[in-house]
């Protein structure tokens, strides 16, 4: 999120940290599914948690979202998160409710 044509000084470090974290957060759920070590429900929980964490990792280390990011970008991101939550959550709520009312 740089403001002039040239990016501000970039170093390799965040990318390497990001890569390491992303690899870990990918490996854990994949391993769980491959081995079936935990119950289905727990595994799902781990998958969701790892995905959410990994999204944050990507935003932080690859997209460099942080305190220096222009405020309007952050507002847009937050607004998008809220709306997407409403749209996806609402859709699932509505559709599963309808499903239970109709497929008997």
């Amino acid at each position, binding site marked *: *999120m*740089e*403001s*002039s*044509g*040239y*990016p*501000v*000084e*970039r*170093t*390799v470090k*965040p*990318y*390497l940290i*990001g*890569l390491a974290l*992303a*690899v870990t957060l*990918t490996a854990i*759920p*994949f391993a769980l*599914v*491959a081995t079936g070590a935990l119950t*289905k429900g727990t*595994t*799902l929980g781990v*998958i*969701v948690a*790892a*995905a959410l964490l*990994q*999204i944050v990792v*990507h*935003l932080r280390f*690859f*997209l460099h979202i942080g305190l220096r990011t*222009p405020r*309007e*970008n952050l507002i*847009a*991101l937050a*607004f*998008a998160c809220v*709306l*997407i939550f409403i*749209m*996806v959550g609402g*859709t*699932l709520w509505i*559709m*599963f409710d309808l499903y239970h009312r109709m497929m008997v």
Partner: protein
Amino acid sequence: MTASASTMSPPPTAEQYEEKEFGFWLYLMSDAAIFALLFATYMMMVGNTAGGLPGKELFSLERAAGETALLLLSSTAFGFAAVALSAGERSRTVIWLLVTFALGAGFICLEVGEFWGMIQEGAPPERSGFLSAFFTLVGTHGLHVSIGLLWIAVMIGQVLFKGLTAPVASRLMRLGLFWHFLDIIWVIIFSVVYLPGLL
């Protein structure tokens, strides 16, 4: 506008790059909404196999892992290109862009192979609601990656021919946003489609 008084255009100002980046960011948010709805549709339709094959018998953990690895590495490679760019090193930028391109292209190859295999197995998108949703969701991501590849190719050309000028650098930064964004979408794809499907 009258053509009477046009001199050579001046270089864009820093604010103009910022505007462009912000505009592009808004586009990504809008695109995220598209993906979100495709995800919601997929989640609703995973069960609608209409007697056809379910995900469990179609997906392969190894392939999904391979695709994930390629995409993640290409994202990192793009990061290195950005580092080279900020250091003003033209040839290193190009090399890392090429690496990014190659990894991304590898991802597309794997995905096309996967789709082809599913079609061969009698699981094309027109087989069931579930498969329609699967192909559309994953295919939309794949389409984005392909567009990203085309864009990388264009940018390699620009770096080679124009050098790391300010406009080129600004375009590369936007390309970076796009490429990393697609990586995030992929994380959600494997967490929503492949892993639960194989569980």
